């Protein structure tokens, strides 16, 4: 019981409070009189309680994960009951098609822009709203609010916000004497539009996490810097930012995972276009190949490739964190 409870993902915040105190053998085993050998009744109860969730996860998460890989070796067309195994043909096709690399590039641009953009803007917002300002509570709520709204609703509404003829952006640009780019037809500007919309909706999440981290930082260091007369910028880079390092790593993993997976905003705003695939990310390509072009086998191939890429990136991120983050975090508290 004890060893299990302790084997949770390492947490920098895991101070003495989270550690399970060593104590006498578990009351559960003692009650049943056989330390180390769980009672049959308890085992049964655990099985009954766990079964529904485990079955759901097995059937709807792990089974399709494996099945997706199998499908990637077929020419299945989603509606027919038959599918031929065609070996690596789909993978060969993927590697040979120019649009694969274009979609990969768009995914990369979208992901890097949304991750960097929302983390930078979210951090700046958190720094401002960490100050002692009147009404900051209200503005904090305002910043977080879009995060709880449906991405589809925001995407649809922002399509009109970006409308090159009657929208809000063209109006603001017009008042500044500028012409509006054609967000609907120019692929680069369309990508800009979905990226901006995504950041607008999700920056509140980054903001909330950074704000919590800022509020938990060590005040003594600020104090010391103040006494030393450290300049604000230097203070930020030397004292505040290093303390936010674990949070930054954490956000880079979670924000990346969710922004790679975006579907709703692209589906309602551009349907992957303009010019065919101007804003088609890999996730959107999976949907299009599978459900629009009814090439489920090929869609499954793209999905598998995407999953492998994601897995590699996440493992690299976690490795980086392990090698650079731990020593720094130790001395805290």
């Amino acid at each position: 019981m004890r060893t299990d409870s302790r084997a949770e993902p390492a947490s920098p915040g895991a101070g003495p409070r989270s550690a399970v105190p060593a104590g006498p053998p578990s009351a559960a085993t003692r009650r049943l009189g056989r330390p180390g050998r769980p009672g049959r009744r308890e085992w049964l109860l655990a099985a009954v309680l766990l079964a529904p969730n485990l079955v759901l996860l097995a059937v709807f998460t792990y089974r399709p994960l494996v099945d997706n890989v199998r499908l990637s070796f077929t020419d299945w067309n989603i509606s027919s009951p038959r599918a031929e195994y065609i070996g690596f043909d789909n993978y060969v096709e993927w590697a040979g098609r120019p649009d694969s690399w274009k979609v990969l590039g768009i995914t990369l641009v979208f992901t890097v822009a949304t991750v960097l953009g929302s983390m930078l803007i979210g951090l700046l917002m958190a720094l401002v709203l960490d100050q002692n300002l009147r009404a900051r509570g209200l503005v904090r709520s305002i910043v977080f609010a879009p995060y709880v709204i449906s991405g589809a609703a925001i995407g649809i509404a922002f399509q009109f916000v970006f409308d090159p003829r009657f929208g809000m952006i063209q109006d603001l640009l017009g008042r500044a004497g500028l012409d509006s780019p054609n967000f609907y037809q120019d692929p680069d500007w369309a990508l800009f539009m979905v990226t901006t919309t995504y950041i607008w909706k999700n920056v509140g999440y980054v903001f909330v996490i950074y704000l919590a981290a800022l509020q938990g930082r060590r005040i003594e260091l600020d104090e010391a810097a103040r006494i030393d007369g450290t300049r604000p910028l230097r203070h930020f880079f030397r004292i505040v930012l290093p303390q936010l390092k674990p949070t930054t790593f954490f956000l880079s993993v979670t924000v990346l995972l969710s922004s790679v997976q975006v579907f709703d905003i692209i589906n309602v705003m551009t349907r992957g276009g303009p010019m065919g695939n101007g804003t088609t990310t890999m996730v959107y390509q999976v949907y299009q190949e599978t459900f629009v072009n009814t090439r489920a086998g090929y869609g499954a191939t793209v999905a598998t490739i995407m999953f492998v890429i994601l897995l590699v990136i996440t493992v690299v991120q976690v490795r980086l964190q392990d090698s650079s983050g731990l020593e720094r975090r130790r001395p805290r508290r």
Partner: protein
Amino acid sequence: MTDSTPVPLTAALPEGAGVDAPAPRRTGRQATRRGVSGTVLGYLSMLLIAAVILVPIAFILLTSLKERPDIYTQPVQWFPDSFTGQNYSTVIEDVPFVQYFLNSVLITTVLTVVQVVLGIVTAFALVFLNFPGRHVVFLFVIAALMVPNQITVISNYALAADLGWRNTYAGIIIPLAGVAFGTFLLRNHFASLPREIIESARLDGTGPFRLLFRILLPMSWPTVVAFTLITIVTEWNQYLWPFLMADTSEVAPLPVGLTLLQNNEGSTNWGPVMAGTILTMIPILIVFLFLQKQMIKGLTAGAVKG
């Protein structure tokens, strides 16, 4: 498939951090040090931040209240001579918006109840019951967080179609019902509770259910509430899976209904579409307005001990 909540897998925050956590020692002092120009800069930045979020929302809201000719003008008439509720009545009368709304309520309610119950019993079994392979079971549950929905949809779609689940509530709900994130959150919370109370309760011969309902849950409401709220938001906004499962208004939830509305009206008639998006946003914003602290607590809870 699991929900797509961004998940605090590793703890990223210092202990005791939280948005509602006061930062008292810092504030007063800073104000005196910052000086007038700093304060002005602070307020200007805050104003800019608020404007970036609020101006587009105001634009959408105002558009939803405009008559059609007032929407299609250049330059934009932010405040036309008269406002109208016409777009809202169009959406409610001509489009089965009420049906979408009820579908959303039903799907969200069922999924939330099921996920909260499953999350609690799974976490309870993982922390308080003795059975072989417990660690493996825990890994099995949290590893599901790493599987993106997009890789599961193709096969799940095929399965659901085979079972005749397309355009049914069951088809939307059941594949989304597994709980990985909530199990993680609640398990960490249960593991952080003071062992002494639980040990002594069990020494008194308290049965597992009594332990759960009389002792554990009363100590866990903040975490349970936080998880419930995150689930409500996630399921209310759930898109890809219901979008694939429902292509008629019968079972489609609001975000999918909105897409159907957009397909029909599109750029030719923005008024009702804007009214529809506002109607979709309002219920969840009301929940948010009253319970944001608890919700934020849930998001930061992977790090901050609940």
